């Protein structure tokens, strides 16, 4: 446990020692603002909700989270520090979890910095703060799932650009299978087997993020996000072991 803490602390400090952290936070805040107010029609809706804010998160994270996660292992491999890290008296799992947690905490910080928008709706009307809180939790879990996928792709290659692109594609697939236009198309193609479409859609982050946005805390949604993370981190471990075995 202490080892995880030590590694996470180092990793988190490394974020703030590089411009990545500030660039990502600023872009995230700017884009959420832009999407919420300009495209989402926050004011025009005349509702005291943050729907127009959270609805964009799966798309924003699509590029920002891989940008945060792409360096996790590829940098470690490129600079050779992986050899130091993995010859320390720690298990590879502690290293993987520690590094993942650091980036996840970093994303939490970026997310928390959007609090003015929460204050704004509270000032303008009387929203259901339970729903807002649930949506924040859902958004953080969503970010964690993307992040775990980026973590996995960054273990595959020492090239950060490749790692970024692969994780964007994988995350995009996770959106697509539950994106209404795609599910409608699938219903037509697989018109005799709607249950198959349901199964496919069940793998989408959209399907599961929806519940959180409505303020419904369904344990199945929670389990979905957690299993995406566990699975991806587990695969990260397998990939790293594979590299070392040669």
């Amino acid at each position, binding site marked *: 446990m202490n080892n995880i803490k030590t590694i996470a602390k180092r990793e988190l*400090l490394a974020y703030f020692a590089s411009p990545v952290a500030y660039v990502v936070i600023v872009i995230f805040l700017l884009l959420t603002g832009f999407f919420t107010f300009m495209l989402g029609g926050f004011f025009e809706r005349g509702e005291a909700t943050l729907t127009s804010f959270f609805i964009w998160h799966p798309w924003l994270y699509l590029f920002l989270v891989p940008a945060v996660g792409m360096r996790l292992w590829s940098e470690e491999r490129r600079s050779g520090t992986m050899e130091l890290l993995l010859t320390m008296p720690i298990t590879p799992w502690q290293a993987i979890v520690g590094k993942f947690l650091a980036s996840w905490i970093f994303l939490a910080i970026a997310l928390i910095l959007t609090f003015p928008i929460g204050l704004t709706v509270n000032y303008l009307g009387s929203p259901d703060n339970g729903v807002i809180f649930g949506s924040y939790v859902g958004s953080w879990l969503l970010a964690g799932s993307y992040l775990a996928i980026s973590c996995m792709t960054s273990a595959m290659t020492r090239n950060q650009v490749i790692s970024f692109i692969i994780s964007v594609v994988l995350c995009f697939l996770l959106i697509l299978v539950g994106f209404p236009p795609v599910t409608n198309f699938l219903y037509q193609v697989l018109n005799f087997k709607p249950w198959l479409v349901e199964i496919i859609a069940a793998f989408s982050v959209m399907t599961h993020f929806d519940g959180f946005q409505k303020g419904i805390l369904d344990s199945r949604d929670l389990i979905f996000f957690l299993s995406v993370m566990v699975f991806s981190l587990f695969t990260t471990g397998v990939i790293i072991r594979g590299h070392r075995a040669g």
Partner: protein
Amino acid sequence: MIKVQNLVKTFGPKRAVDGISFSVERGEVLGFLGPNGAGKSTSMRMITGFIPPTEGSISVGGFDMVENPIPAKRLIGYLPENAPAYPDMTVYGFLSFTAEIRGLAGDARKRAVNRAVEMCFLEAVLHQSVDTLSKGYRHRTCFAQSIIHDPDVLILDEPTDGLDPNQKHEVRTLIRKMGEKKAIIFSTHILEEVDAVCSRAIIIDRGRIVANGTPQQLRQKSDWAGAVTVRVSGVSAAEAMQKLAALPSAKRAVLLKEEATSATVRIMPKPGVNGALTQNVADAVRGWRIEELHTEEGRLDEVFRSITMPDTVKGEAK
């Protein structure tokens, strides 16, 4: 402390390490020699638990590196090849991170960092970020990391690479001193280092151990070991050559230098004559004026070359 048995590592069809066995006890400094690509770094990576061996076993301080890696790794300090360090940290931050992950906390950690900083002369760059360090300083930072927890076992992959002559000297002195209480393995391409620090050396070539012994023993493998060089005057070079080459213990004599009044001749020993040649030469030259006479010890670089490139060296000898 370190016991390696029949270590094998294959990368695809290639056997990078091909059945290496040796052991190192506390108080020993083992030098790893060998040409580029011989498998030195690969062996070290397996011993430190970075890559698993394809075959064979490694035990460090009684703990098996494959079955029980954590306690084994705790005993080891490791300086990888190319001295990696986190570029975005300061030297101080990096060293306290490695101390923390080695389980040192609070005052003990501060003391450990200060001790390592002192031993590796890092005061001047303590708060500089690692990616702006010169190569030598980065190397020293990574070296400091390896000794921060005062480990019983040190594995150093080319520890003097990129250091200036003063620092090379300091690091050698440090290794020799630490070698009194620890078990140390270090690799190098600088053969004088072997004499300066090692109590034993292993030469690896294409994944196999081709020589193993004290620097003294290795030197004796040289064709040169036991050769006698004499400079005599008052006799013609031809006469001297003829008489010396005919000695029963001599393989052949080589005329190194011929001057107006003197001749320098090197007499190579027949294999297995040991010290007899020197005595024979001394007897043979009686009556001539001897200006110089000494017995060669054999040179490590020549041993190294003849072991790792036998064909080329034989070609040159012809």
